[in-house]
Structure formats: structure tokens, C-alpha cells
């Protein structure tokens, strides 16, 4: 029982990071039909921005993290929007999908060739101590910290989307871009905001996950897959679906690693993906998409 609690907290902490990646995935799809198969690399890369700032430029940790977020917003947000998605989306969804796969490979190989093929130790802002929650239940403060920061980011995003006029204009753009335009919503700007949010969430996820799993060029492979699975499992057209999907996969893969076999850990998202597609294709929280002809 105490094991279970510990596993649950660890699972929620990883799940919250998955959720960050999955939310961005969903948002990009909603506002601009972009299925970003480079999403995993988007979470891998910001850690290296921070490492470059720290080791090459010799900046302090906090500043380096800020630089990493800023660089992510510019490169993974603005540049991705206008250099990759903008020109390619006019050619249809499929060419863009293939291009994001290519982008993922480029990012991965660039980090490997120009930075390092080795896993890099990444500093953490969170204290690396264990605390005892209940008698017998010990969790690391770092895990709690990850969970808190990720949930805070998610909460902030949810508040922004539902509680502010700009957020609701973004939702309107996602739900019906044509009508949003008819009402005078600056659709282009809302789409750019989505890309910025995606890049920002990826940077936060990167900063949270790299101290735990080390920063490595190949980190994106599993992360991208898990984000994709989490988005589908939760319902591709729902931000809250991505949250539920991410947390669920995080908890299940920690449980599977402990009770079944670590070898099966990576199979969890895929099994879940297959089950959902078979029995609930719109996802756990998704709604069926009706597309007007």
C-alpha cells in the first residue's frame, strides 16, 4: 500500500510532464491542424539551450533557464510557426506531418553532432532530499516539485484559456476558425499564441524532466510517442483530455514498471493507445468531430 502511494506520486510527476507535452500537441492540432511529430524533440532541445548558456556562455543557472525559455519561444515557437508550418500547411496536413518528422530528426542529430552524444547532467532548482509524507511513505522533494510546477503551469494555462478574453478567442479559433474570423478575432495572432504556448510548455517540461533523466539527444523519441499517445487517449480535441491522458500514462507506466516488468514500461502508452482506438476512438474525454463539407 505504501509502495503504491509512492508509485502514484512518482507516476503523477512523470505524467504531469507528459501532460505538458501532450497539451501543446493538442493545441497545435486544434488551431492549425499541425500534428507535431517533433514534439518529443521540442522537449529535448530546451535543456541544451540551457546547457549552452551555462557552459559555453558561463551564465548562472537561473539566467540560463530564462535564456532556454526565450530561445524556445523564438525557435520552437515563432520560427516553427513561420518557417515550417506557415508555408507547408497550404500544401495539406500530410506534407506538414512528414516535415515535422524531418524536423525531429534534424533537431536530434544536430544536438548529437554539435553538442554531444553523451547524456548530460542537468542541474535542478529543486532540493534533492527525501521527505516522509506518511509513516513508511517516502518521496523525493524533487518529484513533488516537478508535480507542483507542472500542475501550476497546467492550471495557469487553463485559467488563461477559460478565464481571459484572449484565451477565449484562442478557444474560438480552435473550435471554429472561420466563424472566429467572421467575428473579427485576430485569428493569425491567436495561432501564433498557440505556438508560443506550446514552445513555453515544452521548455518547462524540458527543465523539469532533464534533471531526472539527464539531457540526451535521444530523449525525444519516447517523449514524443508518449505525448502523442496521451493526446489520443485523452481525446485529441480537448486540452483537458491531454492532461488526463498524460497523467494516466505516467501513473500506469510507473505501476507497470514496478509490478509487471520494466521491460514493458514503454509498451504502456502503446497498449493504451490501441485500446482507446478500438473501444473509444474519440478518446476518453474527446467529442466526435463533425466536419462540415
Amino acid at each position: 500500500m505504501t509502495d503504491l502511494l509512492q508509485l502514484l506520486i512518482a507516476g503523477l510527476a512523470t505524467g504531469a510532464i507528459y501532460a505538458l507535452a501532450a497539451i501543446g500537441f493538442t493545441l497545435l492540432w486544434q488551431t492549425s491542424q499541425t500534428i507535431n511529430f517533433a514534439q518529443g524533440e521540442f522537449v529535448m532541445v530546451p535543456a541544451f539551450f540551457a546547457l549552452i548558456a551555462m557552459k559555453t556562455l558561463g551564465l548562472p543557472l537561473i539566467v540560463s533557464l530564462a535564456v532556454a525559455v526565450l530561445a524556445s519561444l523564438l525557435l520552437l515557437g515563432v520560427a516553427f510557426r513561420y518557417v515550417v508550418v506557415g508555408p507547408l500547411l497550404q500544401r495539406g496536413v500530410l506534407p506538414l506531418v512528414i516535415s515535422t518528422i524531418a524536423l525531429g530528426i534534424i533537431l536530434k542529430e544536430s544536438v548529437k553532432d554539435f553538442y554531444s552524444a553523451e547524456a548530460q547532467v542537468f542541474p535542478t532548482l529543486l532540493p534533492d532530499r527525501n521527505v516522509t509524507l506518511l509513516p513508511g511513505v517516502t518521496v523525493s522533494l524533487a518529484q513533488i516539485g516537478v508535480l507542483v510546477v507542472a500542475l501550476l503551469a497546467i492550471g495557469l494555462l487553463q485559467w488563461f484559456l477559460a478565464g481571459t478574453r484572449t484565451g477565449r478567442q484562442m478557444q474560438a479559433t480552435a473550435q471554429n476558425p472561420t466563424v472566429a474570423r467572421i467575428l473579427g478575432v485576430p485569428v493569425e495572432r491567436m495561432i501564433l499564441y498557440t505556438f508560443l504556448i506550446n514552445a513555453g510548455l515544452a521548455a518547462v517540461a524540458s527543465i523539469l524532466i532533464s534533471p531526472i533523466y539527464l539531457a540526451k539527444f535521444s530523449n525525444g523519441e519516447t517523449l514524443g510517442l508518449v505525448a502523442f499517445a496521451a493526446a489520443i487517449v485523452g481525446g485529441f480535441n480537448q486540452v483537458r483530455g491531454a492532461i488526463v491522458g498524460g497523467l494516466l500514462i505516467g501513473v500506469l507506466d510507473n505501476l507497470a514498471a514496478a509490478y509487471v516488468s520494466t521491460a514493458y514500461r514503454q509498451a504502456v502508452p502503446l497498449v493504451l493507445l490501441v485500446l482507446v482506438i478500438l473501444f473509444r476512438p474519440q478518446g476518453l474525454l474527446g467529442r466526435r468531430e463533425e466536419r462540415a463539407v
Partner: protein
Amino acid sequence: MAQDTILTLDGVIAGYGRMTILNGLSAAIRRGAITTVIGPNGAGKSTLFKTVFGLLGVRSGRVTFDGTDTTGFTPRRMLDAGMCYVPQGRNLFPELSVRHNLELGGVALADRSGLAARMDEMMARFPMLREKADAQASTLSGGQQKLLEVARGLLLSPKLMLIDEPSIGLSPLMVQEVFSILTGLRDGGVTILLIEQNARAALAISDYGLVLEQGLTRIEDRADAILADPRIAQLFLGGGVAA
């Protein structure tokens, strides 16, 4: 003529991709009246709306709205100029509440401070909106959704409302209600340009009719004259049998 015309099209050519739908269309829409656009499928009725509102580019010709040359205006500028557009079908944001759907009609409002008051006015005018303010828009009936769309369009106090097939999928009772809202708006000074599948019923509440065929104006006349013309009835209103 100039004074009582609110919208003028001069030889407008427009279409989608390589397809040309409007083939040099000219028409003059009277101010403060309901004008129903009729014509067979593919005549260019909806295309006319999209072109006038700036959703489709004008390849050639000129659109004049309320004394201003609005050719090539974006939808946002058309809203600012005093036009609103209620397209065919479902046009709400299904996951947002009724209140927030209504509020989005005010995005183009220059003075945000007036938004709450305008929303209150709309809710007073359509009490259903107040009752269902916090419900998700997707839970409204088809007719209620149309009312919300119309109210959302009215939020900016437009001079001209383009409304495409408002009665589609509505019960006969609801159709009557939508029509009476439109005549009420006209009586309040709003010009209405209407496309309606049920052309007879629409012409009956209209002041003028505009008959399109193959992207050109075939007839512009008073609605009662169009209704009374047996040839038009035969060609465009589904047979000559009186309704």
C-alpha cells in the same frame, strides 16, 4: 437612389481557385429593407455574401458599402464599417458557454467598456440567452443556436446584416420566430440581406428580391412583384403553384 442604397456591387467577379462564381455581378441593396436573394443552387448567393464581407477576394469590380469603397476589405474592417455576417449552418463555439459565445460577438467593439451593457441589452431582448447564459452552447436547440448567432451579430449594432439560410433545420414555429425577429430588426432600422431556401416565405416578409442566375443579377424588383410574376415562380420558386 444613392441615399437609399446601402450596398452596391459593380461588375463583381469572384470565385474559388480557378472557379469563377460571380461573373460581373451588379446589384443595389436598399437601406432599411429586407432583401431576399434567390436563385438556383450554384447561382452565387452564398458567394455573394462571402465576397461582400471580405472572406473571398474580389478579382474585379467594386463593392461600395454605406458610401465607402469596401472592395478588398478584411472581415474585421467590414465589421468596423457596420456589416455583420451570419453564415449558413452551425456557427457557434460548441464548447464555450452561451455568455462567452455572445461576448465573442464584441471582439471588434472599439470601446470594450460598452460590451457588458450591450450583452445585457441582448439578453433582455432574447431572455432565453439569460436563462441559458452558463450552459454550453452545444446544448442549445437548433433554433436557440440561431437566435444566439443573430444576437451575437447584433452586438456591434450593425447597419447591415447578411444572413444565410437562417431557417435550415428549424421547426416551422421557430422559422416564424426567426422571421419575426428579422422584420423587427428591419423596423428598427437594420438592413437585412437574406438567403433563404424557403424563398416564398422569405419573399413574403421581404421588401425586395434579388434573383441571381449563373453569377449575374437576373431580376431586381419589389418582393411582391417577384412573387406575383408567374415566370419567376415557375423558374425559381419551385413551380407555378401558389403557396
